[in-house]
């Protein structure tokens, strides 16, 4: 079964400090991993994805994520948080094998990031 876990419902950091939003996954075969951000009353915006290649993936707004196959993790990071980064973050996974029903994504439950001034 494919699934995503975001162990923290809430992450609070001070502006200027580094931030990490955690994600672990379970998938048969190689994973395709995604991070999305949702601002209040808005749709999901794509941040970054890992398909293959370099384990460190860089995305929008200065975010990056590190794929760790042995730990089945894909944590989202940013070196210096901004108040405007406060939002709901979703990790998602789909399998790379042919059994994945045409791109079906499995989402985590989301992590609310709050950056305080």
């Amino acid at each position, binding site marked *: 079964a494919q699934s995503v876990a975001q162990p923290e419902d809430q992450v609070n950091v001070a502006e200027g400090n580094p931030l990490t939003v955690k994600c672990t996954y379970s998938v048969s075969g190689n994973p*395709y991993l*995604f991070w*999305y951000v*949702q601002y209040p*009353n*808005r*749709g*999901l*915006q*794509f941040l970054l*994805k890992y398909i293959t290649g370099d384990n460190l993936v860089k995305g929008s707004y200065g975010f990056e994520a590190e794929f760790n196959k042995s730990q089945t993790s894909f944590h989202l990071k940013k070196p210096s948080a901004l108040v405007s980064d406060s939002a*709901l973050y*979703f990790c998602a996974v*789909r399998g*790379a094998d*042919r059994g*994945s*029903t*045409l*791109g*079906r*994504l499995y*989402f985590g*439950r*989301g992590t609310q990031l709050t950056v305080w001034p």
Partner: protein
Amino acid sequence: DTAVSQTPKYLVTQMGNDKSIKCEQNLGHDTMYWYKQDSKKFLKIMFSYNNKELIINETVPNRFSPKSPDKAHLNLHINSLELGDSAVYFCASSQVGLAGFTDTQYFGPGTRLTVL
């Protein structure tokens, strides 16, 4: 230009009514999706269409019926609305690549449905 658009943005209606939500994408994608986000922000896929063909049909009441008149549109019709249908409904689209693997999904702004 908006890549994935939905109408209406807000929908308030009485129990028992029938309503529709429309979705359009101008990205040239061939696969479209409907998701439901509940009050706890949990996202759950409902349907997916590839080239106007239904390929994902989750355990959704048959009061929900998607319709895809062409690759750029995927509408969601809901009959006999119930209180529990209150949620935010998101449309998304992606392009199926080689060997049936899809690229990134792009989401619409959502439709907040409130059933009174």
